[in-house]
């Protein structure tokens, strides 16, 4: 130690004592701050909660997801890992994933807590869906490898029987890794292509609402006859034309609906007026968030002037609706003006979940029946038939302005409502009639 050379023999000792004690104090303090003393640090508390949740998950086997018949959709064997999707093509977007690396998506994100809530057997709760594996596969096949979605609702209670979707490339939830996720993320809007998230202009399917609004407003149908020249000058500026520049001559509501004549429905919207149309749109829950058991649907619209009104009346303009909400609108027409709340999960563990719930009564029974009549005539136009009972439909082509369209078909039968959509295609909606026909066959075959 500093001895006779420096003349300060004791100082080093005291300094060393002090430094050592200070270092030990800092170490002990850090230890207590980082978790040893609960409540001392909010950050440590948050990390503790997250870690404990993750650890509890590591020891848990994910609960199974079953279809309505008790067939497996996902099955888990290994604790801590997402179970394997038995039907990955048809269900990947719907069941999604819940991982620490890539976050959560789909049903697994929504019901993660239940699926990882371990019982005595170390397994999470089982989810029983209203979906049917056979129908889900048929719905996925109906997409024919194109980007879009296929939805089937049960008109009796609003149960979702199928909700299949496909993005620009196929999504396989069983092979999630950094590379595949990077590839998926490189496609713009990949995760929105699920039929329940991405709201787009509905095209002529919206004419169901325009017709309903006019009928609800009490407009005299005889007074609505109109001679179409292929275009309509909108008062205050702007022009509406028919799809493909077609001209239809003398039209009434039936022929205009069947041929989906834009000029007729733009004029009808203008005659109905902004207030009446908007009232009917709101009655169909457009512009509102609709909480469902497996997602929350959103839609929007904006009508600032006459041209907006004309455009909105034909399903263009600033209106954006998800395919599932289009299915709900069609189902309301098929069910005499009663809109049901769609539900996908019928049981979580031992608990029975959603049942038939009336969401809204957007139009009166007479109006619904009249619009349904129009839809039936349209279905006849497309040769759409069902093995039993009637079929109604409405097609829609929303032009994106860059040469591509979003196309839709909404089909109703006494028992079911179907909506098929295809995104960014150069085809028009008529091509979906064949796919809808195939799905109808599968539907009645399965039933």
């Amino acid at each position: 130690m500093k001895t006779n050379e420096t003349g300060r023999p004791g100082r080093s000792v005291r300094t060393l004592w002090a430094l050592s004690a200070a270092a030990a104090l800092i170490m002990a303090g850090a230890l207590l701050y980082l978790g040893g003393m609960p409540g001392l640090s909010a950050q440590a508390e948050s990390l503790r909660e997250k870690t404990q949740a993750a650890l509890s998950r590591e020891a848990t086997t994910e609960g199974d997801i079953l279809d309505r018949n008790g067939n497996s959709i996902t099955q888990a064997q290994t604790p801590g890992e997402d179970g394997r999707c038995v039907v990955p093509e048809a269900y990947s977007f719907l069941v999604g994933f819940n991982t620490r690396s890539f976050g959560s998506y789909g049903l697994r994100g929504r019901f993660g807590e239940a699926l990882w809530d371990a019982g005595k057997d170390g397994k999470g709760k089982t989810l029983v869906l209203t979906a049917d594996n056979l129908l889900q596969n048929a719905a996925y096949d109906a997409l024919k490898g194109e980007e879009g979605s296929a939805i089937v609702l049960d008109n009796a209670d609003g149960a979702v029987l199928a909700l299949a979707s496909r993005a620009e490339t196929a999504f396989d939830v069983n092979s999630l890794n950094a590379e595949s996720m990077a590839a998926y993320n490189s496609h713009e809007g990949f995760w929105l292509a699920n039929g329940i998230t991405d709201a787009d202009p509905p095209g002529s399917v919206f004419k169901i609402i325009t017709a309903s609004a006019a009928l609800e407003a009490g407009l005299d149908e005889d007074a609505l006859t109109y001679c179409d020249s292929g275009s309509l000058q909108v008062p205050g500026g702007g022009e509406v034309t028919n799809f493909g520049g077609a001209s239809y001559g003398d039209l009434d509501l039936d022929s205009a609906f069947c041929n989906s004549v834009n000029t007729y429905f733009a004029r009808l919207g203008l005659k109905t007026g902004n207030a009446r149309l908007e009232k009917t749109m709101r009655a169909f829950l457009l512009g509102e968030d609709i909480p469902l058991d497996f997602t929350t649907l959103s839609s929007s619209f904006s009508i600032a002037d006459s041209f907006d009104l004309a455009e909105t009346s034909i399903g263009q303009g600033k209106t954006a609706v998800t395919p599932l909400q289009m299915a709900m609108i069609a189902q309301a027409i098929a069910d005499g003006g009663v809109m049901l709340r769609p539900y996908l999960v019928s049981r979580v563990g031992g608990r029975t979940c959603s049942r038939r719930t009336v969401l809204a009564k957007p139009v009166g029974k007479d109006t619904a029946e009249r619009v349904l009549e129009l839809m039936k005539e349209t279905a006849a136009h497309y040769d759409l038939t069902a093995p039993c009972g009637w079929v109604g439909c409405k097609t829609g082509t929303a032009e994106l302005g860059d040469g591509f369209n979003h196309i839709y078909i909404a089909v109703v039968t006494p028992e079911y409502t179907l909506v098929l959509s295809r995104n960014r295609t150069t085809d028009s909606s008529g091509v979906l009639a064949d796919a809808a026909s195939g799905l109808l066959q599968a539907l009645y075959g399965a039933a």
Partner: protein
Amino acid sequence: MNEQTGAAVKTGAVVALVQCAAAAVLFVKRPDSLDAYSVLFLTLFLICWGMLTWASFTGGSMKTAAAAAVLVELGGALFALRGRDYAVKQAVILAASALAGCAAAFACSRLWRTVRERPVRTLLVCAGAAAGVFLLLLAFGSTVGGTRAWLRLGPLSVQLTELLKPVTLVAFSVLFGAVPVPPLRRYLLAAAFLALDAVILVCLSELGTLLLLVLLFLLMTAVFLPARCSLFNLAGIGGAAAVGIPAVALLSRMDAGSGGTVLRKLVAVAQKVAGRVSIYLHPARDISGSGYQLYKARQALAIGGFLGADQCVAVPVADSDFAFVTLVEYFGALVGVAAILAYLAVMISAVETAQNCPDDLDCGLALGSGFLIFAQAAVMILGSAGLIPCTGLPVPYLSAGGTYAVVLAAMTGFLLWRSGRTAPVRAERPAKLERIGETAE
């Protein structure tokens, strides 16, 4: 039964009781680890009882012996958590290192006169040993995790860089305590020895050991040399920062595959340093990549709580760099604080021993031994808590690792031997003691 035998029996009973209590805690927390602990029981008992009895018989520092025994017991509990096979291996390593500690103490008692009488030769032997370690590793070393520090001898793997710690400690102690040259020359010689270490350790990418040796140099120069030498240290630290930080920033951006051998090495080391600093500054930036280990350590500390967690995260290198974190995770912050106090006790005891040493050579060795143990623990604890950049070193007494266990046992053995040796001297030579440490300003 004479008095000494009675004390030994009493000590044995206390140690056995403590170990039974540890076994009970293990049984409650991790029933499956009890089998592994039973394998370690006898080895742990013999080591702890041996240290305490030795200290008791020789008048050595009971503080050092008790603190080391506590830490050895905690390390044993950690080893037991990793299963029976692992426990068997660690029991063998512990026994071998304890024997090495005894051998070190015996060697000290035999070689001490030579070291004291021929300090220059000792210094040269130390420099030769350091260079020998370097050449051996350069020629036959194997690289693990980017660090070329291991020499494989059949089934054994020896981390030769660990030997640089005692070698440098002896060199510094001889320089500051036995070489008859003016203080400035001592300082320059010590700095030259440190520079030799630095070259060797940078070439081998063993930066954690280099950090410890720099800290040891700062301590020794501050304690044994006049105040102006501390000013040199401050200037050196400032200069190193002024040159080192831009150099690391520049080199770390370069392509590690370009340039000559020296440049490639420097770029690799700079990238390693920059990586560690980056994780330290932004611990949450890449928790699944470069920040993974530190994030896991933070998770483990968070869930450890006061008394330990029931479910534990898989902390990487849990038996080595993050052994302390694992200890806290399994047994709680209470036990962690006890371990910190034990490290502090080793350091304080080393200071007391140094204070009572008859000359500066012994004083330096005792102080340096305690400091190397305490500083290494502090660097790892503060690093895993995110308070300083994390580096890769074993945690004294808690980590597995044969070479370090031997070095640690040697340092502990020396501390016990030296403290026992000073006791009678102190009684007989109060004037000497007064001269060294007890005279206040």
